[in-house]
């Protein structure tokens, strides 16, 4: 399939909704927990078993983004969005069959394996195209799409819960809910497939810089550069620090203030988690757009430097101030979201637009690593501290200082980022041809 080139007059403001229709759908993955309790009671599963489809889905997201990126670049965004639509929707349909026949392995295969491929291909599908359409504002453009991934869970969580309430939480009710999800998401994502276009290669209107200007580096060459691995460390550390809070947000705020005169109730803790999700989403669009103004390196200095400062404030203030705790956590989560959303634009600055989607896909392995590392650190240390007889905010003090250390490592990695050496650049064929034509004309004159 050749990439769909935009006809004359095609508006670039049609591309963000195309991207959003995919990201808002696949972001459902983070609302999987809604299905866990009904599945556990209907099919007699343990908590670990019911988490399997989500875990496999996230593993497949990382793998398919890393290995499918080059195919996405070659075949274009419409092909990628079509693959994402088919895999993500058929994952739900297979799960519906699995729930109806009470064959849990079909749900794991469908949602986790098949749907997971849709997650990975869908996640990277619009990135390269958005950057090409918005060379003057790449941070804002990718921020819109990646904000959609956060927004997907906000939509799916109440929607899925309402559906289970209507259809029932037994196996046939779950099957019906999966079926409706599969069909609805296929229709919703279709908008992206139909609307997405790649820009023509000429200069954009209005004197904006062309996406095709500047150095261009292939995905194969990019992974051989120190810049790629510096950004890998930056993303991994930033995400680890964010997940550290996100993973334990509700028990953390409850534990922190349980020995004070104003302890936090269960419903207030749920409200805190929701507020963190809002900060995460706002950070994706807000900070990523800001990076277009102050530069990518500076914005990561803020994420990592000020993030460490926020963790330090939480650790030092302990349970003395609830507003300070909430404010610092919100800022950290906004940096977490911002770190995700700004990385494609940072990659574009360093490696050009040539295969930025494929490079982004490979960099997402940092996310998979952080997804294991962050919860592991916070949970393991909190358990050890509890065993040692600690209580309240002191349960988390060591985790907080470890997060500061990780952010400092990320800060140093960001400082080490330099422009890519020209030996890694791909020669521009168009400019070469033009040069050859000029030489030929001069020779014949």
């Amino acid at each position: 399939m050749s990439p769909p080139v935009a006809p004359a007059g095609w508006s670039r403001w049609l591309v963000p909704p195309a991207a959003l229709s995919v990201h808002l759908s696949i972001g459902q993955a983070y609302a999987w927990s809604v299905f866990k309790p009904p599945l556990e009671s209907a099919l007699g599963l343990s908590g670990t078993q019911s988490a399997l489809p989500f875990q496999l889905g996230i593993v497949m997201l990382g793998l398919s983004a890393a290995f499918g990126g080059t195919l996405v670049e070659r075949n274009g965004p419409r092909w990628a969005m079509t693959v994402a639509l088919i895999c993500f929707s058929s994952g739900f349909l297979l799960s519906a069959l699995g729930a109806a026949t009470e064959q849990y392995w079909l749900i794991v295969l469908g949602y986790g394996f098949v749907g997971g491929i849709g997650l990975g291909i869908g996640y990277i599908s619009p990135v390269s195209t958005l950057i090409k359409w918005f060379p003057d504002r790449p941070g804002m453009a990718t921020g819109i799409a990646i904000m959609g991934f956060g927004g997907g869970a906000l939509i799916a969580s109440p929607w899925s819960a309402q559906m289970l309430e209507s259809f029932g939480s037994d196996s046939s009710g779950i099957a019906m809910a999966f079926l409706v999800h599969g069909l609805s998401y296929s229709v919703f994502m279709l908008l992206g497939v139909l609307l997405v276009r790649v820009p023509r290669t000429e200069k954009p209107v209005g004197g904006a810089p062309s996406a095709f200007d500047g150095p261009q580096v292939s995905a194969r060459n990019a992974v051989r550069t120190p810049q790629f691995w510096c950004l890998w460390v930056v993303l991994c550390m930033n995400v680890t620090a964010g997940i550290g809070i996100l993973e334990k947000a509700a028990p953390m705020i409850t534990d922190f203030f349980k020995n004070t005169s104003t302890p936090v109730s269960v419903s207030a803790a749920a409200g805190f988690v929701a507020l963190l999700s809002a900060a995460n989403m706002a950070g994706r669009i807000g900070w990523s757009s800001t990076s277009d103004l102050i530069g990518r390196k500076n914005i990561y200095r803020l994420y990592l430097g000020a993030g460490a400062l926020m963790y330090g404030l939480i650790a030092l203030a302990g349970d003395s101030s609830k507003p300070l705790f909430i404010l610092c956590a919100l800022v950290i989560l906004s940096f977490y979201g911002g770190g995700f959303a700004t990385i494609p634009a940072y990659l574009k600055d360093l490696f050009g637009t040539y295969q930025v989607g494929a490079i982004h896909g490979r960099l997402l392995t940092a996310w998979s690593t952080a997804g294991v590392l962050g919860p592991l650190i916070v949970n393991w240390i909190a358990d050890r501290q509890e065993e040692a007889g600690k209580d309240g905010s002191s349960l988390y003090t060591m985790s907080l200082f470890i997060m500061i250390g990780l952010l400092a490592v990320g800060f140093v990695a960001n400082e080490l980022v330099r422009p890519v050496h020209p030996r890694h650049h791909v020669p521009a064929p168009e400019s070469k041809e033009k040069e050859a034509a000029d030489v030929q004309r001069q020779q014949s004159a």
Partner: protein
Amino acid sequence: MSSDSSPPSGPPSRRGLIAFAWVWVGVPLAYGVYELVRKATQLFTG
């Protein structure tokens, strides 16, 4: 002559399509944000 009197044939306006596309993604997102705000207020009332 006829070509002189015909209206200029520029690229078609996409305003309707742009509005439709943004409403398509904006409505579900607004629903998600509304539900989120409802839940987040529990931090101050719960």
